[in-house]
């Protein structure tokens, strides 16, 4: 597994998967739908799936002396590692905006502010990617277009909901650095649980499915 993960990170990964991590600092852009940064992280990961497909990566990898299910697991680990790197960057941005940068140009924002509630939504977007895109891809280990389109649609519905939710009566405090702290912490913890479960369950399902599909040369 260690070798396969190294292969995913250093050999298979498209450079864009790493460059697109920079979109995590979009959280500094005032009056911008910052949750789109999470979508861009996933778009970067998608480029790895696309490049790997063009390079016959699945065929090359299953010919190596490895277990077939580990091929799937290594890719999921790669996805999760990139997402966690993006999440750490988002968390740093959120921490700065919740403390030393909470005033000034960030004081008034009709869209979402970078806070714990935002970080929870970042994890939910990533969970959506795991379930809809990764799960869809491993159905035949070939198609990337339709799964990514479905992910794009669901992700933008989620982004729209998240960016405007605080306009609902009684939820305005969700868009402040420390408002409704119990709700914000609970939401982040719940999102982390959903992310973890989605990753594990989607991976297990993809592993089982990958064992049964016929691979074309």
């Amino acid at each position, binding site marked *: 597994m260690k070798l396969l993960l190294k292969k995913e990170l250093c*050999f298979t990964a498209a450079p864009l998967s790493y460059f697109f991590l920079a979109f995590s600092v979009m959280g500094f852009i005032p009056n911008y739908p910052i949750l789109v940064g999470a979508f861009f992280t996933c778009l970067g990961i998608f480029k790895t799936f696309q490049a790997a497909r063009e390079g016959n990566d699945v*065929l*090359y990898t299953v010919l190596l002396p490895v277990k077939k299910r580990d091929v799937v697991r290594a890719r999921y680990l790669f996805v999760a590692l990139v997402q966690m790197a993006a999440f750490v960057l988002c968390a740093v941005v959120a921490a700065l905006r919740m403390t030393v940068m909470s005033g000034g140009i960030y004081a008034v924002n009709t869209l979402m502010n970078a806070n714990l509630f935002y970080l929870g939504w970042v994890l939910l977007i990533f969970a959506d990617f795991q379930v809809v895109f990764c799960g869809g891809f491993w159905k035949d280990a070939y198609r990337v277009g339709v799964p990514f389109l479905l992910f794009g649609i669901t992700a933008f519905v989620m982004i729209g909901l998240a960016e405007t939710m605080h306009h609902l009566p009684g939820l305005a405090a969700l868009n402040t650095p420390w408002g409704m702290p119990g709700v914000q912490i609970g939401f982040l913890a719940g999102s982390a649980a959903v992310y973890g479960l989605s990753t594990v369950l989607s991976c297990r399902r993809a592993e089982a499915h990958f064992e049964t599909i016929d691979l074309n040369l």
Partner: protein
Amino acid sequence: MKMEKILEIRELCKSYPGFELKDVSFCLEEGSIMGFVGRNGAGKSTTLRAILNFVHPDSGEVRLFGKLFSQAEDEIRQKIGFASSGVDYYPRKTLKQILENTRSFYPNWDAARCRELMERFGLAETKRFMDLSEGMKVKFHLVLALSHGARLLILDEPTSGLDPVSREELVVIFRQLAGQGVSILFSTHITSDLEKCADRVTYIQKGQILASEKREDFLRHFAAQGSTLEEIMVNLEVNREVQI
């Protein structure tokens, strides 16, 4: 002396819309070269894919080194090499990058053998895969397959796209490898290559094995169809209803 069976296929069946692999059975012994012959669409690639566990048969079983894939997947893959024409791995990567990544998975990777083969085939490590001609790509696949000490080589049309000199070179390499106990199963349309190196010939027609026997026995068996493998193949396919 009884030779060890490296590959055993028993009553393999697989149905696709418009095509069926029916009760495919044959075996390959240690140090033996088997030519797998048949027309396009006869079921050669499907059979090879089933051997490699890429295709899941509806029934029947494939044993490699006496084991099923489900029993020892990674152990079996350690001992097999696969090369195919028409499969491009990572077109934008250099051969060096691909070699370095591949060797990390094989503890018994023979770097000296790899270098020797790269030189022998005229492959430069700095070239990108996409810059290779079709023939050179096949050669590179062979370098990958031969450098990790595989005991069984499964080759899908390995000599397609190669010039006569390279094909002759490969035939010599196949014979050398067989002498070292490596078993080779290769599908091909170029029957003249088989005349030079195959110990056994397995003929598949419309998803069914017509014969799997020693080359001399095969030629004797189908003597009425012609005196060479090519003549036999042409006549067998022209007279499809032939009864064995």
